[in-house]
């Protein structure tokens, strides 16, 4: 398949179309709305399921294979908030708090972008490495913490934000699921497969329908924050994405794995980071960081970015 064909395939996947339907519903002012409990239930299910699947795979992986990818991920975890911070200061011209807030968002990971990339990679026939969910946690936690450090430099309740990230539900579900998967292995998997594996992609589709509505309700804010934020929210992911694919390749990941690591690296958090930033940097402007991560970067990655990172991975890795 060539790149255009893959782009078409991505655009016409139920997942991306459901996101578009959500956007359309909000723009048409439909009264469609997901109950909050459904949104939360789907989040819990998706995160735990992805962790669990990863854990089962992990139980079959020799630890030594994990070493290089983990190092590559830690490298990304240190670099991404720095580049985010600098670009925000220089290119957007915002103050220290706002730059720190943006750095925290582009320094951590969007779990849904990760899932979409994994699904895409599997969909085009790759078999991405099973330990990738471990890397999500490895990328998420230091990223946020470093960004907050950048912004604070000598004050405030950083410890609280740190604890919040480490014991945050995303991390607990992802790592907890991973551990359970690793411990219960294939025998456990066999019994819960019809719940955690088979319906997974459909549940993700439903979740993206909701996320489309949430993202669309941020589109109005786009006009206020302007063109520069749009550029920021697309160029930074391209940069981080290409870098992620590259170091993934160097660390020995398969093209599928490198695609997913690229997408992770390109993504911006809109669950863990906003909560941590709101507590640690209350003076930063939520309109800025939420619009950038949720209304610009997330749809960009979902629709265009992932196929691009895949193309890069194919081109580098063969």
């Amino acid at each position, binding site marked *: 398949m060539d790149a255009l064909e893959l782009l078409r395939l991505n655009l016409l996947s139920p997942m991306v179309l459901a996101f578009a339907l959500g956007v359309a519903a909000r723009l048409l002012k439909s009264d469609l709305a997901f109950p*909050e409990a459904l*949104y*939360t239930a789907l*989040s819990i299910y998706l995160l735990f399921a992805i962790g669990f699947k990863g854990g089962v795979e992990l139980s079959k992986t020799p630890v030594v294979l994990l070493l290089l990818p983990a190092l590559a991920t830690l490298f990304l975890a240190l670099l991404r908030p720095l580049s985010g911070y600098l670009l925000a200061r220089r290119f957007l011209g915002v103050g220290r708090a706002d730059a720190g807030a943006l750095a925290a968002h582009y320094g951590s990971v969007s779990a849904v972008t990760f899932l979409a990339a994994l699904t895409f990679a599997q969909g085009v026939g790759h078999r991405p490495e099973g330990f990738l969910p471990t890397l999500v946690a490895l990328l998420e936690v230091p990223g946020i913490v470093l960004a907050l450090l950048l912004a604070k430099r000598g004050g405030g309740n950083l410890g609280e934000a740190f604890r919040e990230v480490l014991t945050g*539900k995303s991390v607990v579900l992802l790592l907890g699921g991973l551990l359970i998967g690793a411990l219960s292995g294939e025998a456990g998997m066999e019994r819960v497969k019809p719940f955690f594996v088979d319906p997974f992609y459909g549940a993700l589709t439903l979740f993206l329908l909701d996320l489309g509505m*949430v993202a669309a309700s*941020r589109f109005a*804010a786009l006009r206020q924050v302007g063109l520069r934020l749009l550029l920021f929210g697309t160029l930074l992911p391209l940069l981080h994405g290409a870098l992620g694919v590259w170091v993934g390749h160097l660390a020995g990941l398969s093209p599928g794995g490198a695609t997913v690591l690229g997408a992770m690296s390109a993504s911006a958090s*809109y*669950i863990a980071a*906003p*909560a941590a930033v*709101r*507590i640690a940097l*209350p*003076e930063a402007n*939520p*309109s800025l960081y*939420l619009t950038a991560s*949720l209304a610009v970067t997330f749809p960009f990655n979902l629709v265009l970015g992932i196929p691009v990172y895949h193309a890069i991975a194919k081109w580098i890795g063969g």
Partner: protein
Amino acid sequence: MDLVPLKLVTIVAESLLEKKLVEEIQRLGAKGYTIVPARGEGSRGMRSVDWEGQNIRLETIVPEEVALKILARLQEAYFPHYAVIAYVENVWVVRGEKYV
């Protein structure tokens, strides 16, 4: 029946603040509180996109001096940066000693 006059302080705030606000009011002397999930709009429409949903509406029945301390603390540490409002009312309760 003896009805004792007290103050009811109601705080509407972004839900992220729940834990911090509960700690604050207990530290300032509140003996109990009731929370209800809420949504709303005010001067800053913006709320973080978050699993917790949007707002909470926290009520606490307290003596007047505690009410004033709570309001002062909110004004100092929360009103500037967070989406928070608060108001006080007069209420009458049975068993007034429970709230002091």
